[in-house]
């Protein structure tokens, strides 16, 4: 394959990895975000956490893979994006760290103070990335202050000085927030709303009893909200920022899917609502990546400074090798992750939750 075909392939693959991440982690973010609003007691809280218990970790690996794939396939994109969006990424990382340990540790000691701390780890750990990933994607679509930066790469005291010019983010933290005159912030609102709806629909599908009926009511309202925010966002994106007319197709698909999700949530067909909600996220990712293509980080200072799939990519050799790796492994990943969802397909109710998870101390109070 030609270098350009490989570059397009890897642009698509990275979009696929982000799709996997946002569709899957989207609902477990939603579940975490709904923790302050839905459950009435500790048992219901635990039902919610256990609906995503077996899968949240596997969902999160889609992000790590997207990060690793960007590093391997588009090193300049990886370098400029993560050094440029430094502070938002820092907040996301802190939130994700807190979230991971909270899932595993919260129930392991049954004192109120311990559980409250890790409960907030779950709630903030879900809200913060849900909003900030949206803001980050809003920035990618709307463009960033990217300019050429020249720096010395040769050693001090070397026979001759060698410099290299790279395309780097030269704006500040607040430029990231105000990108696209509010478009980036709206994208943050969009991802939060869509994940809330996605999570509520997931809970309607996976829980039982009283909790399930309350989740179903919330799913109706939230999916309507997602439809409203989504419509404004998608039209703004298409009219103001898209470089490609064909993304209208993705826009229409996203709108239809959001409407379908709302309709199915309204009539109580939660399986279909969940599928529609997942399709909506897929279409939104296609819209985002399609609107940028062939840029990966458009410059608002001068289009000539934009990072594109051409000037940000790895060599043809690396892309070829990585294509083989991805071609062999991705279907396997999809197969065993699908199997996991099949194994844990049953609904969960409060009667499934054991009394005690904390250590029992039957044998001894301590090793002292």
């Amino acid at each position, binding site marked *: 394959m030609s270098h350009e075909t490989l570059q397009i392939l890897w642009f698509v693959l990275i979009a696929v990895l982000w799709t996997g991440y946002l569709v899957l982690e989207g609902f477990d973010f939603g579940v975490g975000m709904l923790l302050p609003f839905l459950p009435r007691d500790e048992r219901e809280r635990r039902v919610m956490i256990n609906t995503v218990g077996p899968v949240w970790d596997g969902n999160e690996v889609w992000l790590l893979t997207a990060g690793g794939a960007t590093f391997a396939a588009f090193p300049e994109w990886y370098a400029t994006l993560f050094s440029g969006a430094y502070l938002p990424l820092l907040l996301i990382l802190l939130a994700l760290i807190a979230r991971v340990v909270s899932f595993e540790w919260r129930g392991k000691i049954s004192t109120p103070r311990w559980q409250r701390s890790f409960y907030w780890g779950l709630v903030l750990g879900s809200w913060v990335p849900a909003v900030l990933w949206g803001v980050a994607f809003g920035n990618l679509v709307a463009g960033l202050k990217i300019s050429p930066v020249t720096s010395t790469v040769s050693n001090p005291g070397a026979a001759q000085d060698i410099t290299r010019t790279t395309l780097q983010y030269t704006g500040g933290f607040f430029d990231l927030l105000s990108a696209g005159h509010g478009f980036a912030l709206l994208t943050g609102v969009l991802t939060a709303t869509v994940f809330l709806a996605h999570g509520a629909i997931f809970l309607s599908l996976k829980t039982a009893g009283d909790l399930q009926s309350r989740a179903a009511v919330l799913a109706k309202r939230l999916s309507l909200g997602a439809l409203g925010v989504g419509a404004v966002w998608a039209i703004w994106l298409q009219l103001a920022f898209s470089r490609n007319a064909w993304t209208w197709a993705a826009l229409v698909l996203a709108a239809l899917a959001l409407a379908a999700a709302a309709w199915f949530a309204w009539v109580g067909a939660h399986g279909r609502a969940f599928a529609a909600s997942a399709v909506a996220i897929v279409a939104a990712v296609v819209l985002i990546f399609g609107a940028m293509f062939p840029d990966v980080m458009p410059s608002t200072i001068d289009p000539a400074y934009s990072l594109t799939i051409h000037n940000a990519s790895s060599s043809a050799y*690396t892309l070829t090798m990585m294509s083989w790796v991805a071609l062999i492994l991705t279907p396997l990943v999809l197969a065993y992750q699908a199997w996991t969802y099949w194994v844990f397909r049953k609904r969960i109710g409060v009667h499934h939750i054991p009394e005690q998870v904390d250590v029992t101390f039957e044998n001894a109070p301590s090793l002292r």
Partner: protein
Amino acid sequence: MDALTLARWQFGITTVYHFIFVPLTIGLSTLVAIMQTLWVRSGKTEWLRLTKYFGKLLLINFAIGVATGIVQEFQFGMNWSEYSRFVGDIFGAPLAMEALAAFFIESTFLGLWIFGWDKLPKRVHLATIWLVAGSTTLSAFFILSANSWMQHPVGATFNPATGRAEMHDLGAVVTNPTVLAAFPHTIAAAFLTAGTFVAAVCTLWMVRLVRRGDTDRARAVYRPGLRLGLVAIVISGIVVAGSGHWQAQLMFRQQPMKMAAAEGLVNTETRVPLSLLTVGSLNNDPASVQHLVQIPCLTSILADNTCNSTLKGVADLQKQYEQKYGTGVDYIPNLAVTYWSFRLMMAFAAFAALLALMTLWLTRKGRVSDNVWLRPVAIAALPTIFLASSAGWIFTEMGRQPWVVAPNPNPEGADMVWQLTMRGVSTQVSAGSVVTSLVLFTLLYGVLAVAWYRLMRRYVAGGVDDAGLGADTPADGGEGTTTDVDRPLSFAY
């Protein structure tokens, strides 16, 4: 402090912290898999008890390892963007493969193992923990390939047109002799950590139960766990030593400066002794180095299997490097840090060795023991075996300085592919941003360390659980696997 120094501290803190938990995760996942296999094959409930006991400790530890690993995937881009641009063509590949080939299996099958006790047939459930164990080991291979490439770049050439290193041989990157030696060393160290952990915890419980007069329970439950830990310590101890010797020989040829710094060797010498105590000023002045206690010839033997091998000293190497790479750089790594971290790596493992020798003798032929020395030795072995890995990595990484990608001295090697650490740091990230992240990561990591310790201590002190062994037994294959839908979830959050 400037952004470079701050970024280096941040990388050091986040990476050493991450790697406190990783060796235990890698080793313990396999040991738990072995315990569960012993239960499935023998049907003896003590192995099920031990599986669940160490399984919970594994999960507590797994979570913090995964959480702190997320940072590793992104901080190259955040603080080391110029490094990432320079090496992304090569270095990104093993990172992406690690996620795709190892992390997915690890996370997915860990979820199946935790929640699958009453949902999967016994043998399928057993397979899930083996997949977790195998994939954590595989992930170590990929990340060590990436790190070994920084120690000894191969399979790449410098492209003057793009100003970047470019890969031309992925096979060479994953069969780099540096990784072929580092992988067994790191994995064996992980097994040594986990074996010591299991042996020490079982020792503490054995001593306690024997003192209480409950020798039957000590013999039935904790002695088998202790013996399994001992097997792990003995085998991995041999592999750690052997692969370490191999690494020293590679280092002699690949990174002579690191080798010289590890010994505080200033001038080129033949028949180099191994120094046990050396002092010098902390400002890295080679002239101040004084060797006080030495074992004749041992360093020469470590490096090249003969007493007559010649090692270049740091002062001579400095002159050689100045000619080749520029006069404005101090190419000598921090001598005090490299010298002492190398020795502490080995010294910290001494308590594990002592524990192994004592318990091998005291628990021979079905015996249990409450010898008064067992408890203090087990308690000393627990933290020190973790610190041994930390010291090893501090040596490996600090000994590579001032390079982030050390030059490959082989004439036909990837000779133009090298980068100074100072050239790898992000140029557009302010010192203020780095200090913010440094402070926030350190604070969060401090809080998590306290919580991790509290949990580990509590669950170690809880002992094996006798309750619910029946209810949590995995469903057997074949007929009658329909599980009661109202049965409580096992291992639920």
